[in-house]
Each structure stands twice: as structure tokens, then as C-alpha cells.
């Protein structure tokens, strides 16, 4: 039985003592002592304010932190003193902090949380990100309510943030996943989500947990699996999370996200190859209102190296992209960094051709993804510079046009995919 290997004897005893729960919130951690306290507090406040009659459990799955994260979780104060109306849960709120076994990575933590959710028969499950301190009790409730009250199986968060933020999502993952899966999910690679027990059981039955995708790309896989396997999905608005310095260097992060996206597309090809266009996804709770500031980013710095990179990588790119795309890239590289405009259509065909090359294995797959990174930086730099001073609405429209360009180019991708 899978539970035997995922849950330690001690955790099993704890869970048996807890019994069945209505709501389970999981918080995977790895050296998050500095940020996890507000997350735990927000969860408990959400339990007492919004779900006082529900049996609830907070489970912290820790990957072997050496900064005392588990004890911070265990000892975090849950006083609701910051609010005018002090409320208390009518049922016992359980809190467990436990290490998970195996290779450190979110996949193993999530597997443990899901296994615990299945064992305790939790009706609604939410997974939170311990890296950010901006989560509020309302945010936790927003992830749980659509599952608990509206019978959704999967709730994807929509972070309220400026459209120029998160370019890896807006420029690559969002348009690619939207065009392929046919659903307009704003943050497909979000580390937080809500889900039903039915979806948990389904996920635990998949062979993904011991793979590289399970180790580093589980966030994206969870979203893609929910879409591809026909679960009832919705989105929910979350308040802005203060940006924290990324723990993973860009190159590694880029490789993890892009490889995960490509592997998911390969896994779910039978689902998405036949889909055309895209459908909007229901927003279960509205976006919290907040003023957003445009990030201060110098796009020109990202485009500075574009010309040299294309020239240096020519002998690699000619195996990956078509002659036409390579010619267009070289023509683009001839322009001054300050005048670089990477068109949507060229970017869409570049990404699709990299996806096809990845599928065909024209060279070692990690090399294909590494070769895309400089092109992504060029595209991102060009976009950031072009829209640096534009109003949010204009940037949103430009991002929508990019998604539509990916959808327009999809028949070409499908044709090449089927031919490969």
C-alpha cells in the first residue's frame, strides 16, 4: 500500500488520533523558519473565522530543514488578536509537523500531504506556499470554499499582480498551456491550490511521484492533470504576495519550469491535440482590490546579449528550429538591443519548434531547454521595455494578444506533432 511508504508510523498514529477531517491545509517547507509563521497564523485564522464548525487539520510536511522550521510551525501563535472580532473554532484544530522521506522536493511533500488527506478523508484540501508571507485568512478560505461549497475539484489561484510581473508565466507558460489545453488559466504554475478528495485520490494513483516531473514540476503537473482529466476546475482571486528573492537561480528555475511544461504536454497529448481555441475558466471568488505598482525592471539589460547569444548558438539552434525561424531570429539579432522587438508570431513559432524538438529528442533534452533560455530573455526584455510605461490595461491586452497568437499557431504545432 502506498500509504505505508509515504507516511511514517509516527505520522500514521497522529493521523489516526485525528480521525476524519473536513478541511486539510498542507504547507510544504524546507528552511522556511523566516516566513512560515504568518502562513500558519493565516491558516488558523481562516479555520476559526470561516470554518468554525469544520474539523480541520494543518499538516506541515518538512524536507529536513536545519533552521528549526518544524518547531516554528509547532510553536507559532494562533491568537487572532489582530482582528476586531475575535473568533474561535468550535471544533479542535489539529496541527502536525512531520518530516517526509526521500529526495527533498515539493513532490514528496505534496505526496505526503495528499496521502494524509486521503487517509483522513478530507473533503477540501488546500496547499500553501511557505515562501511567501502575504497569504491572508481570506486567501486560504478562497482556496477552500469552491471545493467545500461548490463542489469544484481543483481551484487555481489568480494572484493579483501587475501584468509585467512573472514573465516566465505570462510570456511562456500561460500562452503555451492555454493554447494547448484550451483553458484560460492565468497562473498554471502556481505553488498554491485547492482541491477535492476525489482529485487527491486520482493524483495519488498516477505514476508521476517518483519521476523528475514529480520532484521539480509538480505544481504545473497538478494544474495540467486537473484540466486534462476533466475535473471541475475554477480560479480564485488571491491578494498580492510580496515578492521574495527567488531561491533558485534563473537557469535552474527556467529549466525546471520549461521541462515540466514540455513533459506535461507530452503526457497529455491525447487530450489537447484535438482541442481548438480556449474557454475562460470561472472565477469562484473575485479578485481582492489593491493598487498595483509596475515592477522596476530594465528590459534593455535582458536584451543586451541577445544578438551575441543567437550568433553563438547558431550551430545548436539550426538543429532545433526551422530555417525560416532561424533566419528571422538572425534578422532580429541584427537590430540594436534598444530597438529589439521580438514579434508574438515569431515567439510562438520559436516555442512550438522547441517543443517539437524536445519531443523528437533531436539532441539531449536539457540542452534544448538551455538553448531556449537566451531567446526567452530576449523576448522578455523586448516586451518589458516596450510596455514599461504602459497602463495595466494595455499590457493585459498585449498579453491577451500573445495568447491568441499561440492559439492561432496551434494547428501548425498539431501538424508537426502528428508528423513527428
Amino acid at each position, binding site marked *: 500500500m502506498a500509504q505505508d511508504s509515504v507516511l511514517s508510523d509516527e505520522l500514521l498514529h497522529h493521523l489516526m488520533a485525528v480521525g476524519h477531517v473536513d478541511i486539510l491545509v498542507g504547507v510544504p517547507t524546507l528552511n522556511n523558519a523566516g516566513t512560515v509563521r504568518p502562513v500558519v497564523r493565516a491558516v488558523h485564522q481562516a479555520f476559526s473565522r470561516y470554518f468554525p464548525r469544520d474539523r480541520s487539520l494543518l499538516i506541515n510536511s518538512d524536507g529536513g530543514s536545519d533552521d528549526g522550521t518544524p518547531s516554528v510551525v509547532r510553536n507559532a501563535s494562533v491568537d487572532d488578536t489582530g482582528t476586531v472580532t475575535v473568533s474561535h473554532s468550535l471544533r479542535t484544530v489539529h496541527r502536525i509537523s512531520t518530516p517526509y522521506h526521500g529526495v527533498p522536493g515539493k513532490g514528496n511533500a505534496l505526496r505526503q500531504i495528499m496521502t494524509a488527506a486521503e487517509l483522513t478523508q478530507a473533503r477540501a484540501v488546500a496547499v500553501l506556499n511557505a515562501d511567501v508571507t502575504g497569504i491572508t485568512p481570506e486567501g486560504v478560505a478562497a482556496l477552500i470554499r469552491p471545493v467545500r461549497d461548490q463542489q469544484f475539484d481543483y481551484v487555481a489561484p489568480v494572484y493579483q499582480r501587475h501584468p509585467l510581473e512573472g514573465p516566465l508565466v505570462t510570456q511562456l507558460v500561460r500562452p503555451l498551456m492555454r493554447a494547448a489545453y484550451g483553458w484560460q488559466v492565468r497562473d498554471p504554475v502556481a505553488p498554491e491550490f485547492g482541491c477535492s478528495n476525489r482529485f487527491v485520490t486520482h493524483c495519488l494513483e498516477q505514476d508521476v511521484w517518483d519521476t523528475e516531473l514529480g520532484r521539480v514540476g509538480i505544481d504545473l503537473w497538478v494544474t495540467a492533470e486537473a484540466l486534462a482529466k476533466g475535473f471541475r476546475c475554477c480560479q480564485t482571486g488571491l491578494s498580492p504576495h510580496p515578492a521574495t528573492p527567488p531561491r533558485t537561480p534563473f537557469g535552474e*528555475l527556467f529549466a525546471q519550469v520549461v521541462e515540466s511544461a514540455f513533459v506535461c504536454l507530452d503526457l497529455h497529448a491525447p487530450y489537447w491535440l484535438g482541442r481548438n481555441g480556449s474557454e475562460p475558466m470561472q472565477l469562484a471568488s473575485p479578485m481582492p482590490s489593491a493598487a498595483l505598482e509596475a515592477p522596476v525592471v*530594465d528590459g534593455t539589460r*535582458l536584451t543586451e546579449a541577445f544578438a551575441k547569444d543567437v550568433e*553563438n548558438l547558431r550551430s545548436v539552434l539550426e538543429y532545433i528550429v526551422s530555417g525560416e525561424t532561424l533566419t528571422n531570429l538572425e534578422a532580429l539579432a541584427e537590430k540594436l538591443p534598444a530597438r529589439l522587438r521580438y514579434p508574438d508570431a515569431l515567439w510562438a513559432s520559436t516555442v512550438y519548434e522547441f517543443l517539437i524538438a524536445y519531443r523528437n529528442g533531436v539532441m*539531449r533534452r536539457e540542452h534544448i531547454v538551455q538553448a531556449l533560455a537566451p531567446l526567452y530573455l530576449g523576448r522578455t526584455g523586448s516586451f518589458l521595455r516596450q510596455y514599461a510605461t504602459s497602463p495595466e490595461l494595455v499590457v493585459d491586452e498585449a498579453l491577451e494578444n500573445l495568447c491568441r497568437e499561440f492559439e492561432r499557431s496551434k494547428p501548425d504545432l498539431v501538424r508537426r506533432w502528428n508528423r513527428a
Partner: protein
Amino acid sequence: MAQMIANAIRQAGTNFLESLAAFLPRMVMTLAIIIVGWLIAMLLRTIVRAVAGWLRINVAAERFGVAPLLKTADLPPADALLGAIVFWLVWLGFLLSGIDVLGFTSLQGLLASFWAFVPRLLLAVVILIIGFVVANFAWRATLLAAVNGRVPSPRLLSGAVRWLILILTGAMALEQIAVARTVVLTAFAIAFGALSLAVAIAFGIGGGGIAKRILEHQFPEQPRSSADEISHL
């Protein structure tokens, strides 16, 4: 006197005819062996090419970067090359077997030497193939790491890595088939030593500033590139 001459000529003629009678069957046998060997070698070449095609050797050669090198060296595609190697090895074997049947004393032992040489030749070919694959992999990995890591002159660096591995592989292959072993080893040792020394001197004296910049780039006080300045997710 005339009788003696006639006897001698007759004896010579008889000896010649006897020798010819003894040699002709061996000659026929040799020709038969060579022709049959050629047919078998042709058949094996066809089989090897078919199997190589089925195993998509050309695609693998393309993927591992062997195909462009073959093209540069004006050699046929990988499956045809493999077939040609098998053809020539088999046919040469039959050819030497046929020559051995002729019974020429000076050519005795040629076949044994050839078969003793074949494993070394095959090993050398294997070394070369592995060398090509490793060199190409290292070239691409170095190029991509250098471009993404903003290391100066990525093509020069990756090209140097590729050629170093190819030269090393070539020297190992030649050493394996014992072609001018001493010359190859000495030449390689001198060239490699001179290259290392030249690089060290150039880098240490002429390129001290570059070395400093590279080391500073590799071990920065604040490890953040322009790509790391924004939150990508």
C-alpha cells in the same frame, strides 16, 4: 647433345605442367574464395545497412553530432559507413584466406596477422565513435553553459574543448592500431604539453585581467545576473 637439350626442355615442360596442374586448382579455389567472399561481404553490408536503418543509426548520429563530422570529412552517412566497414573487413578476410590457399611462402601468416589486427582496428573504430559523441556532447554542453553563464568567447571555449577531446581520441585510436606508435605518442605529448603551457602563459601573463574577470564572474560577491534581477514566476 641435342638429345640432352631436348630431355632438359621436356623435363622443364613436364615440371612446369606438373606445377601448373598443382597450382591451377589452388588458383581456382582462391578465385572462388574471393568471389564467394565478395558476395558474402556484399550480403552482410546490405544486412548491416538494413539493421542500422531499422535502429535509426543516422538519427542517432545526427543527435550525437557524429553526422556533421562525417559530412565534413566527406564520409558517407553513418549506416553506409558501418556497412562499408563490415564489407571491407569481411572481404579482406576472404581475400587473405584466398591468398593463403595459393601457398606462397612469403605470404604465409598474413591471414593470422590480419585476424590479430581486426580486434584492434574495431577497438580503434569504437574509440573514435565514442570520442566523436563525447566531444560533441562536451562541445554543446560547454557552449550552452558558457552562453547562459555569460562567459566570454563561448564558441572559442567550446570549440577548444571539442578539438581537445577529438585529438585525444585520435591519438588513442592510432595508438590502438599501433600506427607509428612512438611518433604519435611523442607528437601528442609534445603538442599537448606545449598547448597547455601556451594557454597557461597566455592566460597568466597576457590575460591576467580576463582571468580576474572570469573568476569574479564565476564567484561573484553577489551572485546575481541580469536574468536574476527579476522574479520570473
